[in-house]
């Protein structure tokens, strides 16, 4: 009787997996690139130098990599980042990983491209605190950078706000996830992940409804939701995308993050308030940290009635989305 039941469960699981569209989880064949900033070796290398160069900050102690470091999941592993001056920014550092696949950047989606995003943190007083009208003349006095910019962007006016943004964006376009155990599973190797993780995958695309938002190769559809992390009407708190425009559907919403390499980028959510994947999965699958009285709470966030065992299975699956670090030589010498 037990053997028959076990076989039945196995057959149902196989059928579920066989009918699931595994192709949508596979890496796109090309990395998106804008027509006016196609990737070249010169642009990527220049962008990498700029990304790691602390001279781009007001106090010359902070670079893009300080808050988005390759050895720290392309974030900084703290709830909210420390600014150049006193105090901390209001939000968790989002990972740079796979941002090339996103149409909106930052937690509130205010940038429409990596080029639009690149200069924001440099200028922001809660981040690198370096005005561009100070930075550009500074870079123009560094002959090494003048030469590199002319090679990467010939006939584009040398070092300008635009070419600076394009170069940093070019490097960011190369920051992509490597092959994770789940990828081998999606390509047909059914032993690539554990049975527990397989069960977690079935819940992920089924009962738990995680895939409603964490969809396709990048495990995010880039959508914006208020998942009930804060209670009430958020007065005096971070209103997310609503700060861009007072649209009712944007009240308290933030972008769905990728789950690629998710074990490397704790803590989680826009405020960095969640330390573990178990807690994160529980919040999303139980109707939010606050269930009632949350203004504009997403209808995607409902109590899915998962057991603790099922939560642990989902977490086991999420862990299979982490692959090895991408190969990267971090620069130690910078243009003079």
């Amino acid at each position, binding site marked *: 009787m037990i053997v028959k039941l076990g076989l039945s469960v196995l057959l149902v699981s196989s059928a579920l997996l066989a009918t699931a569209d595994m192709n949508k989880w596979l890496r796109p064949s090309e990395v998106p690139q804008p027509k006016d900033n196609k990737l070249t070796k010169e642009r990527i290398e220049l962008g990498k130098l700029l990304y790691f160069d602390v001279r781009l900050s007001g106090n010359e102690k902070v670079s893009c990599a300080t808050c988005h470091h390759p050895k720290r999941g392309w974030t900084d592993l703290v709830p909210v980042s420390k600014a150049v001056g006193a105090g901390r920014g209001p939000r968790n550092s989002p990972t740079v990983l796979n941002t090339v696949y996103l149409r909106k950047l930052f937690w509130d989606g205010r940038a429409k491209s990596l080029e639009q995003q690149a200069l924001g943190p440099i200028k922001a007083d809660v981040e690198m605190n370096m005005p561009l009208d100070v930075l550009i003349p500074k870079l123009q006095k560094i002959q090494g950078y003048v030469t590199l910019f002319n090679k990467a962007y010939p006939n584009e006016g040398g070092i300008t706000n635009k070419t600076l943004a394009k170069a940093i964006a070019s490097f960011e376009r190369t920051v992509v996830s490597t092959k994770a155990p789940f990828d081998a599973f999606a390509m047909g190797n059914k032993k690539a992940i554990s049975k527990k993780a397989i069960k977690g995958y079935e819940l992920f695309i089924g009962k738990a409804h995680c895939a409603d938002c964490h969809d396709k190769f990048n495990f995010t559809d880039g959508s914006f939701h208020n998942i009930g992390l804060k209670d009430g009407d958020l007065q005096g708190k971070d209103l997310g995308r609503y700060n861009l425009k007072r*649209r009712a*559907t944007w009240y308290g919403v933030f972008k769905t993050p990728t789950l690629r390499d998710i074990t490397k980028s704790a803590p989680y959510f826009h405020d960095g308030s969640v330390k573990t994947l178990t807690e994160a999965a529980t919040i999303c699958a139980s109707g939010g940290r606050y269930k009632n009285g949350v203004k504009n709470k997403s209808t*995607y966030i409902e109590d899915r009635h998962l057991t603790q065992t099922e939560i642990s299975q989902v977490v086991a699956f999420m862990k299979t989305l982490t692959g090895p670090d991408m190969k990267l030589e971090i620069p130690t010498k910078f243009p003079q």
Partner: protein
Amino acid sequence: MKKIAMMLFIAGALSATLSAKNWVIDQKGKTFIPSKLTVHVGDTITFKNSDPFAHNAYTDDESNEFDVGMQPTGKETKMTVNAKESFNIECAIHPNMLLEVTVE
């Protein structure tokens, strides 16, 4: 003469109303189907949510500005094209959704 002018005006208005078309856009698979549309002033666009989760449709174009708000699964909403100015419609939840509307 005035009566003839009035009759011609009414006939014209009636003709425009009768010839106005209703276009149906499906929100399915987190896309607008079709993703491009050519319409005329006075036409209406019906948004039908066929996905198992909520969507939205809005445009910031000043001449045709609208926002349907949260649109649950199965719900239909409608907007009227008021001005001869092409515009884009997006979903406030899913930034990858884009409907390009050309107004002729």
